[in-house]
């Protein structure tokens, strides 16, 4: 009915049809082996839930209430034993190389039993994503190597991402705000490295992590233009851990204070600073900073979306179990239409959320950070060649400046801005939609269960405490709404400006 050229011209118009329906275009391109791998990740999560998470979830939560200083170190060791901290490290860097989108399904699965436990695993990959997206292959190799070694020795080596400061939370997630923010982490250039001063707060897993990706600024008044990304290892002089917070939920995952007092970080651990940026690109440091933030959060916000779906599912499953076991006026609760409709809505929320994070993953896979790994030949090459090959042949290359140069160019200069906008926007959409749906399901579960849901041993009350955090971290849901508008909707609103009202 229409010529192909006409079809193309109509579908390319804003909003571009391909961008609006990623699953239609990209699902068929998925390498088959990825599906099997994802199934394996889900199966592992289910086994872990049966053997570890379910038996421990309420007990650990209770312990952290009895003693707010308690840190569930043994849980981290268990996750390490199960191989979860290297599962999604690419084989290139010595990990098991599971495809990165599969982590969402894994986190949803664990999150449906305990999203705090899912966070203890998942947030390590936020650290990994931040480290990788800084593109310094030598540093990536060193840090990932430590993680792999940690798995072998049984001494977990985790990575934290440390950007939030006492007076800057939303500000550090958006360069336009960072430029005006009250920043406190200062990095002073000295021969051979930087001297770091200041503190970071709310750092997930801070008390467990060995490596920390830390943002600091050489000029606190011009944060967006003078950002420095430093790798700080536990035990380095001048770096100490402060308290960890007494939180409402997700209590197995500590949110820590990190203090830096004249902490010297040598050049070899400087992953990014304005000079390094200048050596790769003509783009301004500010733009590259925003690009970096977008890359990291495009990955992690899809993961938080999966957490949101996890809690939505946990709430749904808890409510359904209750409805199956309870009678009203002598009839099973599940025979009433009003109960069926509520359970149906909760189930729908789970599925809708999963669609949202799947779209965000597809954007990462085809238009974002995972796009190299997703190309079929590269995917199969990485999958089927043995780790020993990478160790012998590839690993030595990673220490060469050219490797860092290529990776940096790939991410900084060789990607299309439109693709990045789409990817960050969809990640934000998944983040706020899934987490809002998660909290909504928790509320519905409590309403359905009444007093039975209020008791700690019911599990329902813990889920609603855990769920609330999801609307706050990885950018509050307000910031994520604005980011979605800015990245995807704004082209249709040419008069729109941001953070200037």
């Amino acid at each position, binding site marked *: 009915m229409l010529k192909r050229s006409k079809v193309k011209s109509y579908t390319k118009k804003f909003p571009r049809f391909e961008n609006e329906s990623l699953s239609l275009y990209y699902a068929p391109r998925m390498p088959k082996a990825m599906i099997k791998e994802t199934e394996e990740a889900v199966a592992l999560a289910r086994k872990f839930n049966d053997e570890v998470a379910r038996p421990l979830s309420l007990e650990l939560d209770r312990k952290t209430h009895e003693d707010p200083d308690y840190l569930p170190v043994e849980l981290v060791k268990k996750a390490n034993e199960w191989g979860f901290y290297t599962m999604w490290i690419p084989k290139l860097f010595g990990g098991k190389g599971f495809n990165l989108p599969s982590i969402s399904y894994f986190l949803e699965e664990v999150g449906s039993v305990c999203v705090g436990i899912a966070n203890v695993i998942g947030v390590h990959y936020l650290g990994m994503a931040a480290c990788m997206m800084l593109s310094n292959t030598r540093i990536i190799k060193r840090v990932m190597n430590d993680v792999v070694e940690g798995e072998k020795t049984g001494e977990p080596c985790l990575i934290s991402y440390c950007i939030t400061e006492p007076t800057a939370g939303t500000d550090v997630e958006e360069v336009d705000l960072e430029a005006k923010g009250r920043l406190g982490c200062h990095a002073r250039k000295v021969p051979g490295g930087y001297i770091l001063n200041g503190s970071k707060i709310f750092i997930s897993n801070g008390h467990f992590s060995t490596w920390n990706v830390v943002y600091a600024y050489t000029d606190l008044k011009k944060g967006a233009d003078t950002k420095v990304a430093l790798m700080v290892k536990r035990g380095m002089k001048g770096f100490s851990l402060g308290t960890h917070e007494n*939180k*409402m939920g997700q209590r197995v995952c500590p949110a820590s204070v990190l203090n830096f007092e004249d902490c010297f970080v040598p050049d070899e651990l400087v992953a990014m600073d304005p000079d390094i940026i200048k050596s790769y690109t003509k783009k301004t440091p500010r733009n590259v900073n925003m690009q970096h933030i977008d890359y990291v959060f495009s990955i992690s916000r899809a993961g938080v979306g999966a957490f949101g779906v996890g809690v939505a599912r946990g709430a749904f499953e808890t409510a359904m179990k209750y409805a199956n076991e309870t009678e009203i006026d002598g009839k099973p609760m599940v025979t009433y239409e009003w109960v069926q409709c509520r359970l149906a809505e909760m189930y729908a929320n789970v599925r809708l959320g999963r669609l949202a994070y799947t779209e965000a993953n597809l954007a990462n896979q085809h238009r974002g950070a995972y796009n190299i790994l997703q190309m079929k030949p590269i995917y199969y090459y990485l999958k089927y060649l043995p780790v020993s090959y990478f160790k012998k042949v590839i690993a030595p290359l990673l220490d060469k400046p050219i490797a860092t140069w290529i990776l940096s160019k790939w991410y900084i200069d060789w990607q299309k801005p439109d693709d990045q906008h789409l990817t960050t926007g969809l990640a934000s959409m998944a983040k706020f939609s899934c987490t809002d749906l998660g909290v909504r399901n928790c509320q519905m579960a409590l*309403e359905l269960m*009444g007093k039975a849901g*209020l008791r700690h041993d019911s599990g329902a009350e813990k889920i609603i405490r855990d769920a609330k955090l999801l609307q706050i971290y990885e950018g509050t849901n307000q910031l994520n*709404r604005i980011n979605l508008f800015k990245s995807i909707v704004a082209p249709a609103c040419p008069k729109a400006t941001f953070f200037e009202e």
Partner: protein
Amino acid sequence: MLTALNNDLKPFEDLITKFSREELKPHVEVHDRYPFGDLDVDVIEAGFNKIYDLGFLGIMLPEKYTGIGQGISTLCMMLGHVAEVDASYSLIIFTSALSQEIILSAQADSIAERIYPKAKDAKEYLVAFPSFTDPGQSKTLPEASPSGKGYTLTGKLDYLVLGSFSKWAVIPARISSNRGYSFFLVNLNDRGVTKSEPIFSLGLHACPIIDISLNNVSARIIGEEGEGERYFETASKIMHAAAASINAGIIRGSLREAMDYTKEREQGGRPVINWSEVRMILANMAIKAKVAELCVTQTCRAIDENLKDWGMISIATALHVHDLACEVVTDGVQLLGGNGYMKDYGQEKRYRDARQVQALLGLAPLKKLVLIKEIVG
């Protein structure tokens, strides 16, 4: 708002705000750690005795039983003010009033006389009650059997508010020969009563709740056999308004803390209250706060003036205000960002408390069905 409409409430308002500010506020965080933490039972009991000494445990109880004989407006005003600071204490006052309302609606004079005029302290005055239960919705209630002049009760009762503290409890139980259920007065110090450890719940931590099991415990009937449902309906009709007033107070507290914080907290080089989306959220919270107050005030009026359908108004108010509260407290945490999630601030407690309050007097969806049944007949 209640006080603006009714000047007689002023002295009570002054008293309760002073009490909340001076006696409750400094201890909210420590009390919230109960049943864990270092808070010992003596400290909790001292707090209860203070509210007893001030007369807050008998607000609607007639003076002849040593109450202060006020109406629902006074009770709601007081519950709201206390809830702004620590809703756990509202639950204590609420439970005291609810068990009294059951006794009053059963016109059980002898029971009231046995408890209140003789009480020496809060333990004896404050009658435990399963305030989260609509006994008609419960599949399992203790069994009551006639024995001599009275009855004996056997069986389990869950989620008894103040069960670990009070001497007396009003307990619903079924008599096998009857349809429906009846209420009984039970001495919780009886040897046949076994008490669980305090139940660790979502919110309202400072008001202890336990499960009990009864083994041939002697009990006195309150009112008549099989009439429990009628007494509960009468009492809960009025107490729905009281439950709503607790959540209206929580809403006010949440809004106030959110406003204070967003005025102080800066992001992007300005107080966050100056970002229009933050204002929009605050505006929505403020609208809900006003609506909640209006609902409570007008319901109290309807009850005081004995409007024809005040019972329906009361239940509708409760359902609506609870919904509003659950939304407001979620935004209340949100506006404080990460700090809102921490125990150093009040918002996370309100997030938990509001949902706990929502579950008072039985399952919310069933209350809706009761309401529509009343409306459509």
